[in-house]
């Protein structure tokens, strides 16, 4: 039985945005597996048992005024050892009103470089959250596939 549920935001054709992101960034297979393991354990054990995975809420970003940062955004921290990329998918709790506290949605994939998130990623993530609030069909339970190219 799972304690938590992890969703992902879908594009306008209801396709997986996480898969598209992992493919576009050519994330190594071992690191994809590492990301999946952490999310599986989050879903099984809850946030309390995966310390240092969910960070936020994000309040600062270089080049962005604090008032322009959408509220309620967090990042998942999957450290890139072995020369891997620093994966930082942007997530929010819920965000649908009927969601219990144990639901998060991955809004946008992101890679951190030099301790900085990509410019505009928070703005995009905030926009995805708004889209989702207006159209709840734009998400489904996240299943990270083994065979990301």
């Amino acid at each position, binding site marked *: 039985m799972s304690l938590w549920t992890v969703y992902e935001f879908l594009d306008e054709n209801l396709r997986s945005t996480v898969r598209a992101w992992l493919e576009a960034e050519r994330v190594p297979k*071992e*690191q994809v*597996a590492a990301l999946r*393991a952490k999310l599986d354990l989050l879903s*099984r054990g809850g946030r309390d*048992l995966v*310390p240092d995975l969910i960070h936020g809420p994000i309040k600062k970003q270089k080049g962005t005024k604090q008032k322009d940062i959408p509220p309620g955004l967090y990042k998942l921290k999957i450290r890139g050892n072995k020369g891997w990329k620093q994966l930082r998918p942007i997530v929010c709790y819920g965000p649908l009103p009927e969601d219990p506290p144990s639901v998060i949605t991955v809004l946008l994939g992101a890679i951190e470089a030099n301790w900085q998130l990509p410019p505009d990623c928070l703005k995009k993530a905030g926009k995805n959250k708004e889209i989702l609030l207006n159209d709840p069909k734009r998400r489904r339970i996240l299943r990270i596939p*083994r*065979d990301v190219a």
Partner: protein
Amino acid sequence: MIQSDGESCEFRETLRKDLLADEEFRYGYAESFLNTYVAAQIKAIREQRGMDQADLAERVGTKQPGISRLESVNHSVWKTDTLWRVARALGVRLQVSFETFGSLLDEVEAFNRESLERAKPNTDPKLLHPKPRPADSESTMEGIATETGGSFDHHRVFHVIEGGKKRPLVDQSSLVTEYINA
């Protein structure tokens, strides 16, 4: 939101197939699982003991940020010496073993706070209560006799009353079991 048993079966089956299909995937998954498991277990047992990170740090002989690093799912450089010091501070032992990928399925499914917690020696039922040995009925009977302030005569034949008739008890192990369960 708690998922159903059906979804749980699907989860396990998908993971099973993926671990079987690809070597890179299974090692990446297993290593990430191990790092997360160790971090989570240190936190779970620490909280079970009613300690905060500073308390544990003091017992380990380090500072609180050091414990925070150990309790991170992103920590991946484990030294057995450090883990032993943490184990000692928490009143548990460390075990390192090589395992199959199949057993990983059970471990992922069972990942929860209860499965991570461990008893201290003075509350560990397996340390506190000796297991009786039914096969060795004579020594057990002797032990029981001594414990109750009596003595046990190895040459004495016990009798049972069945259907109004007395007969020698050939199998004294059943007497031991009956005594223990009484």
